[in-house]
């Protein structure tokens, strides 16, 4: 079961940092090193897929063959504001609050 790849396969730390920024994840330098190695190995493992000829194969986005699922344009009561804000880390009772975006 231990089919893991050689330790040499790493994703360059700058790539890891770039993805982390895109995903808005603060990583410690230890995490950066760890993920560089682990994601490198996993991606290396993914390379097995290259051996499959997939030319002309339609990507399978979903397992259901459904199409044209709609709802009617009928109003359903919204949640009370109190409920809406109940789980928010910071509010003024009316709005969600976030640190000044322009700042």
């Amino acid at each position, binding site marked *: 079961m231990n089919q893991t790849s050689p330790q040499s396969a790493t994703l360059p730390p700058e790539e890891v940092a770039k993805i982390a920024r895109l995903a808005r994840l603060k990583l410690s330098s230890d995490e950066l090193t760890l993920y560089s190695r682990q994601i490198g190995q996993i991606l290396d*493992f993914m390379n097995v897929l290259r051996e*499959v000829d997939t030319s002309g194969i339609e990507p399978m986005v979903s397992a259901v063959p459904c199409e044209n699922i709609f709802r009617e344009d009928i109003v359903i009561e919204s949640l009370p504001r109190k409920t809406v804000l109940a*789980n928010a880390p910071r509010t003024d009772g009316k709005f969600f609050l976030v640190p000044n975006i322009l700042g």
Partner: protein
Amino acid sequence: MTLPASSTACAGNNGLDHWSIRELGQQLAKRELTSREIIESSLTAISSRDSRIGAFLHVDGDRALAAAQASDERRAAGQALGPLDGITISIKDAICEVGQPATCGSRMLKGYISPYSATAIERLLAAGAIPLGRANLDEFAMGSSSENSAYQLTHNPWDLDRTPGGSSSGSAASVAARMVPGSLGSDTGGSIRQPASLCGVVGLKPTYGRVSRYGLVAFASSLEQIGPFSLDVYGAAALLQAMAGHDPHDATSVNEPVDDYLSKLDEPLKDLRIGLPQEYFGEGLDSEVRRIVEQAIEVYRSQGATLVPIELPHSKYSVATYYIVAPSEASSNLARFDGIHYGYRSPEFTDLESLYANSRGEAFGPEVKRRIMLGTYALSAGYADKYYVKALQIRRLIRQDFDDAFQKCDLIAGPVTPTPAFKLGELVDDPLAMYLSDIYTIAANLAGIPAISVPAGWTASGLPVGLQLQSPVFTEAKLLRAARMLEITSPWIGRLPPTLS
């Protein structure tokens, strides 16, 4: 009303071998037992056992007792709602119920209370089922061992040093440890079947679209389904019966009639053709698991089934395919956890971007971060075609394999996991090895077909091993009947985990 002695026995620890949904239902119907007693019995079991098992994150006994009273009143008035009325279940803490926590096993959602209910929960409530508590899981359903829960480890009731599997760890363990007779889990790549197998209970992943996902906190939307755990096949069938069917709140729930899963459950299937994929019995399969699975298949042969060798040539790509598709979707599904509208917000930030990055960096555990990173990479400019699109193409080939195979057989049988329950801590530093433990379960999620894990036997050291059966889309009725054929011949319900005594 005085109760017959047998029922009080049932409600206590001595009655654990009568703790299946079918038997509880029968006793309720015969008025040998009340729903209140079931809840009390569950609460007693939880208080005496769960400190060792760690299945529950949250228990709401008062609410359950109130529901039990309502159920008992219905029954007294001759208005019982069906086989689940008065029966209690645990709920994976990623399936939302109004007023209840839904931590998803993550620090991110510590203290979060859902303002709405999942459709599956609403339907179970309508059937009289009583949710008792929230079951532990690997964070955001990512994991196979419970070790990714931010809150606690769940231990396998058959061997406390071992994993119950995951990600529906608490669901499986709560049933195996006879704390509740049934549970709801979710299965994205095996998260119901693998823990069911490792804990010796029944676990079913329905056809994609059979059960509404509305209210299931999304990990990988195109792969996952809510499904039942139960000690008995009947319980799984009853739970599925209550939940299945079209839901206008879920555009991917299919508007296909729901079969009657219960009425013919005990009738063995005739002329059954069981497909045996050579790929499932190759290298990497533990010899004891192989023996137990082959014995189970022999049981079918002895009941007249034909065994058909089949091929699933692309199954060897399923792990790699899955670990591109699932993290890609996860990277997007988990973007909403940003510390703005709900969930954890880091106290340390200098601007909006650092608020996001710190909140997410601090609140997500390593496996969640790893998968978000992986998925972000697989979808990012320049890599999407090489990884994401390529994986979806192979996904179609995997589905095609099943379609071809089901031309030759009615069901596909094989192992659920390559090994019995591994030790907690054993694979925690090797994510790839952990991923490979999903090797037999993942393909059903990619293809969207239903699959069940039914207990097949025990290893020499007393660890349960499940048999996996897979069948064409929307043939859960057949799947359940086939599972029942094994259950009837090998009455394992009475076998109790040694930790309970």
